[in-house]
């Protein structure tokens, strides 16, 4: 039997239709004008013990809502959800004993106390015995050098250090499943790499199942074999990461700043690119931030140097940046049928 079983899960929120301005705010006080938001609608999946699953999607896709249902904080509107054979929201406290959770945006550590105190408190909350506690602390020390941080107040830690401690803390009681909600948010590349290797090691150490939500495709690539893409509350793709990688791994976005940019520039650029490279090469032009024009293309079909040369030759370019494809772009391409 699978560790997590979700079948046709729905979560609908009733949200007040808010009106504008002060008078609107007053009228809202007595308003019965609600609309239903379908945060999660009809998702199904099974997760086996020991898997690391990347649960990804753009903002507001329903990722956190699903996580909150799996951890028993939220009650589903309808559908089946079982973790470890139990229904989370009926068995929250019992379930929490076998779970670890990290919310990237907030800490579970005691803000004003030295790091080691939080671990000691968690040890008693989860009733971890002395021997296991020692072993776990040794392991955390080997992995991230936790001992050096023991006496430091949590609030004085850097974001990266705090995240390493938070993740370690969520593994302290040897949970069966750990939910990591945006563990790399706001961190720089080198710290991200550290966090990824920590997660990988912790997964292999005790065969802990990990569910990772993230914005960063790099996290998923580095850690997961399986990926679930969700958007607007529905699952768009659930399967091997290799397929996604094969499709998007080669995608790059070339960002250029064009001198004397005006409304017609975008259109001219688009036309010229299509004329030069052809429609079938699938190059897209868009503007996502001020001054910057994005050209997204598949390196397997069009070499980067060709695109760069072409743009440089035809336009007066002030600045250039090359980035990997963004989450939003992947979702858009999946919508367009890229994964068939």
């Amino acid at each position: 039997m699978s560790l997590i079983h979700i079948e046709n899960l729905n979560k609908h929120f009733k949200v007040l239709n808010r009106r504008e301005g002060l008078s609107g705010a007053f009228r809202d006080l007595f308003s019965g004008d609600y609309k239903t938001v379908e945060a999660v609608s009809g998702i199904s999946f099974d997760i086996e013990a020991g898997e690391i699953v990347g649960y990804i999607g753009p903002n507001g896709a329903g990722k956190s809502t699903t996580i909150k249902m799996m951890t028993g904080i939220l009650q589903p509107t309808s559908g089946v959800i079982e973790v470890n054979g139990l229904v989370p929201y009926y068995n929250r406290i019992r379930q929490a004993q076998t779970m670890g959770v990290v919310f990237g945006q907030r800490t579970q550590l005691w803000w004003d106390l030295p790091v080691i105190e939080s671990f000691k408190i968690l040890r008693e909350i989860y009733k971890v015995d002395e021997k296991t506690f020692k072993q776990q602390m040794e392991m955390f020390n080997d992995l991230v050098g936790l001992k050096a941080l023991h006496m430091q107040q949590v609030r004085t830690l850097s974001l990266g250090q705090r995240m390493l401690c938070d993740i370690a803390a969520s593994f302290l009681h040897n949970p069966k499943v750990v939910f990591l909600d945006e563990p790399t948010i706001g961190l720089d590349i080198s710290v991200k790499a550290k966090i990824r290797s920590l997660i990988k090691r912790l997964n292999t150490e005790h065969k802990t199942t990990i569910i990772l939500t993230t914005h960063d495709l790099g996290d998923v690539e580095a850690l997961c074999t399986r990926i679930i893409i969700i958007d607007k509350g529905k699952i768009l793709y659930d399967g091997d990461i290799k397929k996604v990688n094969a499709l998007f791994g080669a995608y790059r976005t070339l960002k250029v700043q064009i001198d004397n940019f005006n409304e017609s520039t975008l259109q001219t650029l688009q036309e010229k690119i299509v004329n030069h490279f052809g429609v079938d090469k699938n190059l897209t032009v868009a503007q996502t931030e001020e001054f910057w024009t994005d050209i997204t293309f598949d390196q397997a079909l069009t070499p980067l140097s060709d695109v760069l040369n072409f743009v440089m030759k035809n336009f007066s370019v002030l600045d250039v940046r090359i980035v990997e494809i963004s989450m939003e772009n992947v979702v858009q391409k999946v919508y367009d049928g890229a994964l068939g």
Partner: protein
Amino acid sequence: MRKYLPLIRASYMVSLVYRFGFLFSIIGNIVYLGVAYYLWKSIYQGRDVLNGLTFNETFLYVGLGSAIFILLKTYADWIIHFEIQQGTIATYLTKPLDFQLYSLFTNFGAVLMNLTAITVPTAVVMIFVFKVQVTSGIGLWLFPISLIFAFLISFSIDFFVGLISFYSESVWGVTATKDIIVTVLSGGLIPLQFFPEAMQKILYWLPFQAVYHTPLMMITKADLGWGTFLPMLLLQIAWAIILLIASRLFYNQAIKVIRISGG
């Protein structure tokens, strides 16, 4: 229950981090004692007994009242409010902890800190600087027991108010109103004996007097005996149980709001 015990230690240590705040609380409270001393002194001018209380008893009542006020001031309502508003409550809900018990034990740690850092020094100042006298009697033994139930009642009221955040974005007004109601109607500011007779009768049955008046009577009129104290203590215990259960029921209802309509 054992897993909640480290929470007491943790919040005691957290309070210790903010030790400078206590220094100001102590100074502020000594100033208050001075003001109360001269205020009541002038009220008592030329009279020995007012409403059945001597000056010494009134000052003991009012002074210790302020010490208990600080003792129970743990800002539980505010802390719960912020935990709900900022969503940190999710980190407790994903732990094998009951939120009410978590809050109760965390608060108890803060109360212990208040006790050692403010309440005890205030009592020392009252005895050695203002020379108040305490009569001995059964009440002195009942006082600490009564304080524990006063804490449970005060915590339940705070917890209740904090939970309103599930429904309303702001609890400022509710908290301010609660603070005033509790301090005035409980005898925390003026001894209940100074209220009109009819009002005293009503207040006797409300939970607020059980927070201040009950323990304060035990220390100012320590020699009154079981006949007076037993009903008071039983009433206090009844209120503690009623309010703990009521706030529990409210919690179960409120938690459904996030469970059903999202955090």
